[in-house]
């Protein structure tokens, strides 16, 4: 059982590597055949070289760190506010009914449209980006918190009540573990959305960060730099996603995943 799972893991890893290699080859091929100039479509070699120089002069890591801070702070803030609000709404159906239309309506305002306002109000620095990330993260976490808490079986609630558990005990020993699969599902979506939020904010107005780096690259026809920044963003989103998946494996061991490597199907 264990052995076959390890085997499967190696298999999946190999497959991913192969896919990447094919994609790189195709990219190189398109560049060669089309003979587009490097400022429109740089080949893998040029991008690789640009990555090395950006690493060497420290600019990539500096901007990456700025964006990462915004992403993490925004994710934390959005998760905190949304889960507190979700806990309250799940307990008070009347307020949920009253507020639900407003929450849903607020979702129809695209974040791209709000970002300039936030930058005007809170400046081009960390604060406005953190708020943008928090806003974009807010909705999925809120919804998942409410769904998670409502999915707690009524019989287990009655059990806790019959044992005279306090509200804090019920939260810690029943609601949190029972809702955790759904909560982590929300966090998984939130983590990747937060990266998007940070870049949107930086593209709108910033003097540092990976979004800013993209703007710089575009302005200077340094398209290879744009590629480098995009890849860095993808790597960041993947890493965050991976962290949540790791947390799921650690905390949801009792769910006994049939395939622990299934990346997109956390819930069975």
């Amino acid at each position, binding site marked *: 059982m264990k052995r076959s799972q390890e085997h499967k893991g190696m298999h999946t890893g190999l497959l991913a590597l192969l896919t990447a290699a094919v994609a790189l080859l195709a990219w190189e091929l398109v560049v060669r055949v089309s003979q587009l100039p490097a400022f429109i479509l740089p080949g893998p070699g040029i991008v690789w070289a640009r990555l090395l120089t950006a690493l060497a002069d420290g600019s990539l890591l500096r901007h990456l760190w700025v964006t990462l801070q915004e992403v993490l702070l925004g994710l934390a803030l959005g998760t905190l506010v949304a889960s507190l609000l979700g806990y309250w709404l799940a307990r008070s159906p009347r307020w949920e009914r009253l507020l639900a239309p407003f929450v849903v309506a607020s979702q129809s305002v695209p974040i791209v449209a709000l970002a300039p306002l936030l930058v005007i109000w809170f400046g081009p620095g960390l604060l406005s980006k953190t708020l943008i990330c928090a806003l974009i993260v807010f909705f999925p976490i809120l919804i998942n918190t409410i769904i998670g808490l409502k999915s707690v079986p009524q019989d287990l609630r009655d059990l806790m009540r019959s044992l*005279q558990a306090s509200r804090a005990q019920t939260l810690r020993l029943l609601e949190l573990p029972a809702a955790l699969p759904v909560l982590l599902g929300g966090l998984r979506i939130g983590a990747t959305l937060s990266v998007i939020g940070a870049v949107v904010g930086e593209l709108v107005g910033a003097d540092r960060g990976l979004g800013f780096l993209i703007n710089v690259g575009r302005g200077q026809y340094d398209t290879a730099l744009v590629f480098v920044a995009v890849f860095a963003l993808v790597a960041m989103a993947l890493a965050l996603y991976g962290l949540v998946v790791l947390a799921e494996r650690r905390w949801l061991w009792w769910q006994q995943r049939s395939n622990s490597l299934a990346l997109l199907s956390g819930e069975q």
Partner: protein
Amino acid sequence: MSAATTAPFLSVEKLSASFADRTGQLSVLRNLSFSVPRGQFVCVLGPSGAGKSTLLRLLAGLLPTNAGRILFAGEPVRGPQAGVGLVFQDANLMPWRSALDNVALPLELRNNPDAIDRAWDMLQLVGLQGFELALPSELSGGMAQRVAIGRALVQDPQLLLLDEPFGSLDALTREKMGEELLRIWELEHKTVVMVTHDINEALYLADRVLVLGKRPASIKLDMPVKLARPRTPQLRYSPAFGRMAARLRAAIE
């Protein structure tokens, strides 16, 4: 017996219960009265939907009474209270807790430092040695139900309430679990109120059987079961057993 203990341990006085539904009020229990002395094993029978579970939830303090009252050890029941152990129809275990941790839960909630030790001993009592660390998903239906019974017993309740605890088990496992329950009851001698729909099970286990009528239910039959203890499986084939079973069947229909 001293004067203080001659008062019934559990008494239900003119109890009525109803639920609000689409058409208005659904009256479930009407004018129900009975009392149970300490240490008695009472089984409650009745047609489906009669209100047996509702009665048990009222006794457990999980539902408010709307008319009449319930006295437990002389005190009116106003909500869930210590000293009452409850077993649900399905085991109702926490899937993220091992058998041991599930049994320890009631003690853990009271910050009892011996929670794990006592839960361990309780698992031996219900015959689950070797399965302490198993998750509920790794237990059979009967084993999970043993864990649930252990969880109800671990806080040493004075009153044990069981709602069709073996309802989801096959006939053979059911009989085995009934024998187990009797064995434990003879050791610990709790007062037990158990809902079941199995006439043989009720007769085999109980000192007394209450039959609820159709909704709104009141008590249709209150029958003592004067069969010698300890009871043996052969008892089921005795003439006295057969006569009582026929009487109960007639009362339920």
